[in-house]
């Protein structure tokens, strides 16, 4: 029942965004890992913005995959933003502690504008 994630990578000034289409579950692990490795090897960015689909289904397996990626970004001192979440998943990400590793933004414009100013 899981469709492969399609992940689009784009540079916006000092920020590289990863637009993740589809649900985020344990099945997403190879797609997200590959996308992160592509981003890191091609751009070595200091700032990465994850853009999620507002209606995506995200379960505990997907949360674990995201946290593993966030752990890799922390080891490289990369600044991470996340946008596209609906209010339910903002609450969930707060509950599990993802907000200790990444900043949640309400909109893409807000994320890009704010992250551009951060060191």
């Amino acid at each position: 029942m899981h469709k492969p994630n399609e992940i689009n990578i784009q540079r916006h000034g000092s920020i590289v965004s990863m637009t993740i289409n589809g649900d985020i579950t344990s099945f997403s692990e190879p797609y997200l890992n590959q996308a992160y490795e592509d981003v890191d090897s091609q751009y070595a960015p200091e700032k990465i913005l994850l853009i999620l689909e507002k209606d995506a289904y995200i379960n505990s397996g997907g949360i674990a995959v995201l946290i593993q990626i966030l752990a890799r970004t922390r080891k490289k001192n990369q600044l991470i933003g996340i946008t596209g979440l609906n209010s339910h998943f903002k609450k969930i990400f707060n509950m599990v502690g993802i907000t200790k590793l990444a900043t949640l933004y309400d909109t893409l414009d807000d994320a890009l504008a704010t992250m551009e100013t951060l060191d």
Partner: protein
Amino acid sequence: MNMPLKEKKAFQMLDDQTIELSLPNILGYERIAMGCIDSFATNVGFRKERIEDLKTAVAEACINAMQHGNKDQPGERVIVNMRFASGSFNISVIDKGQGIPVPLPNDPNIERIVDDLDPPTGFGLFLIKKLVDQVEFNEKTISGHGVRMVFNLS
């Protein structure tokens, strides 16, 4: 009429306030249960925000049943029994396993996970505990072991 215990229990449980699903033990099928509880909770007047909590807790209980209870065995089933009465949902998610080891695992600690001190596991049980009004792990039923969750309308 003498009815076998299993049929009696099923008959008692499946009244006009109850819906029961039997899901294949395949990851992804928890979304069927999510769709069902979404419709059921909407019909009885739950707020949209609370329905999202219900859906997440039911999904995580199903995933836990599939992976840990039924040990990913494709021939097994996960039973989801949903009953709304007196302003509360009682939802049981039942598998063929032996239940969750007691004491329950510690809540995940994201700092320890990031530092590679803990595995990135335990988020499902953690979310269930956070999102429901009451939860009983290791409920014994005629069909197996389960998680029983209560969600109040008010």
